[in-house]
């Protein structure tokens, strides 16, 4: 059904090629760099084929770096762990808080519900610093400054609106009669929620959870402002890396690769859910 001229086909192929190169080359190049020593990196012209080394990764993972100026302790693995812990916990908390709320907003029309839903939505669009800056002062006073709990609480700003918004749409798409039938069969409200509503909304919950995890992991400014040194996730940690003395570019590249590997892997593995989440349930399936 396509009568495109050969010229057009060529144009399309070239255009697509350029686009693919533009978007994928940086990742490819940094991965390459992470396997290079400093000498290899600084060589001009740069070479695509070289003998790779694992020394950068070894240094990061072992946490120890021998440089010309002596030995340096690297806390990057700790950053990685922080990222993992913070993101996972925040998403889990947001799911526990958000899924029931999404159900309430979907099934019941109550004034407070509309207000909360709207507030959550406004949060999604509000400048983070507006909340974070006063919060940083507040945290100092109430002692949440150097805690994971404080960060998980604040990460709800990222995760909760997304989960409520996406999952609500999925609950609304379930025919209420199915839930009514289950109640009439003799099941309680809670059983209906857990055995009917939640399983049927599973794609939405998965999409929302996945997306929240990625956004939480990729977050920078929250931890920058509210996190203390030992609670920093990789995003802030990597930046600090760059300014530390004695770090080689290869290690920076390796740190970058380790930072983006989890989200890229997740995205590839669960891309179906990703598209659903990103289009915010606007298009199903």
């Amino acid at each position: 059904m396509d009568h495109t001229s050969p010229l057009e086909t060529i144009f399309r192929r070239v255009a697509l090629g350029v686009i693919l190169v533009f978007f994928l080359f940086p990742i490819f190049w940094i991965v390459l760099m992470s396997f290079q020593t400093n000498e290899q990196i600084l060589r001009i012209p740069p070479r695509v084929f070289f003998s790779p080394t694992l020394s950068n990764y070894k240094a990061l993972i072992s946490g120890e770096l021998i440089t010309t100026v002596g030995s340096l302790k690297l806390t990057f693995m700790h950053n990685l762990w922080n990222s993992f812990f913070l993101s996972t916990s925040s998403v889990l908390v947001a799911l526990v808080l958000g899924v029931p709320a999404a159900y309430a907003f979907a099934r019941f029309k109550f004034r407070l519900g509309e207000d909360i839903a709207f507030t959550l939505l406004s949060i999604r669009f509000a400048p983070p610093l507006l909340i974070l800056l006063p919060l940083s002062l507040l945290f100092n006073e109430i002692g949440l400054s150097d805690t994971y709990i404080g960060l998980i609480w604040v990460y709800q700003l990222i995760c909760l609106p997304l989960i409520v918004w996406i999952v609500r749409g999925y609950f609304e798409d379930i025919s209420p009669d199915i839930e009514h039938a289950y109640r009439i069969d003799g099941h309680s409200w809670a059983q209906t929620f857990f055995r009917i509503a939640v399983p049927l909304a599973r794609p939405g919950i998965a999409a929302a959870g996945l997306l929240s995890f990625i956004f939480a992991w990729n977050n920078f400014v929250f931890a920058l402002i509210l996190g203390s040194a030992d609670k920093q996730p990789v995003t802030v940690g990597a930046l600090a890396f760059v300014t530390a003395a004695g770090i080689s570019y290869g290690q920076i590249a390796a740190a970058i690769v380790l930072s983006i590997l989890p989200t890229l892997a997740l995205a590839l593995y669960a891309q179906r859910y990703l598209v659903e989440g990103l289009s915010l349930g606007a298009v199903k399936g």
Partner: protein
Amino acid sequence: MSGLELRHVRKAFGAHEVFPDLSLEVEHGEHVAIFGPSGCGKTLLLRLIAGIYDPDAGDILMDGRSILDLAPDRRGIGMAFQNFALYPHMSAFDNIASPLSAHGNSAPTEHVREIAGLLKIDHVLSHAPRALSNGQKQRTALARALVGEPKLLLLDDPLRNVDAKLRYEMRLELPKLLRGFDATVLYVTQDYKEAMALGHRIAVMSRGTIRQFGTPEEIYYQPADVEIARLFGDPTINLLQLQPEKNEGGVHIRLSEVAVPLPGGDTLPTGRECTVGLRPEVLAFVDADVPAAIPVTVEAETPLNEKVVSLVRTSCGHELLVSRPAGTPAPASGPAHIGVDPGRLLLFDPSSGDRIALQDAVSTRGGSTT
């Protein structure tokens, strides 16, 4: 003690009052068909009884006890929805077993198989709902409603989404099936034939009120108003605006210049038009010499399964449908005579539509309306 009773139930949605004042009493074990056009509130009625909605005022009782403070899962009701409402992520077996598992029955297999066999879906029990045909889905929904042996069964137009052939079969099988269960049944339908086949009594609803509540015979032969007469019967009842005349022979109406006597019509107000209802089967082709034979012209004839319907025209211009059993001979066109069985003629008030009782001995003031 009545199986189910609604007392002065009122329900409004926003500004729209669906039920101003609804009362109904159904005997224990009785099968009642709820019949009415779409929008009259039949489905809402079932949902109020099931507990999906709460009435704004009034009471609903089962076996004499109010159930208003009981959540849907405590009312001991089985319900089959019009759109089946099967659980898409469970097999047909699990769908049917759901009421049993709710009540702690850990080994429902026997029960489920039994009822699936009764409804002839035992070979598809392991399938998911999306793999079932509409007919199978309907029977699964029915099985699910029945398996818990509920005291009250609510069936919301279960045959609506099923193809015509299956609907016809089920119309014969369903009453038989339901008789095997000792439950009070409310069956909502828009098809009058289903209503008549299924119910011990029929409640005819229109715009949130019950216009007539009686046996199929009462509804058919003594409809409370002209609307009900029109809804029941195929082909539709012939309706004519005629003015009864009175002379020394009694009261009669005039068709094609022929006087048709109205027995017991002495109480009728003459000099005023009323709506006369003549069911096609009440008219028959007769010989010209039969008393009160009405000359007509046969215009068309249509065979309709077990009967033949003729369109005839009187000399005064009225068009009537006459139906006769197939095989009975009658002129297919041209001049003919028809006779009216006066005992089965219906009269209605032209403005209100209510039926006017003809013979005091027979009529019982329009069936029972509540």
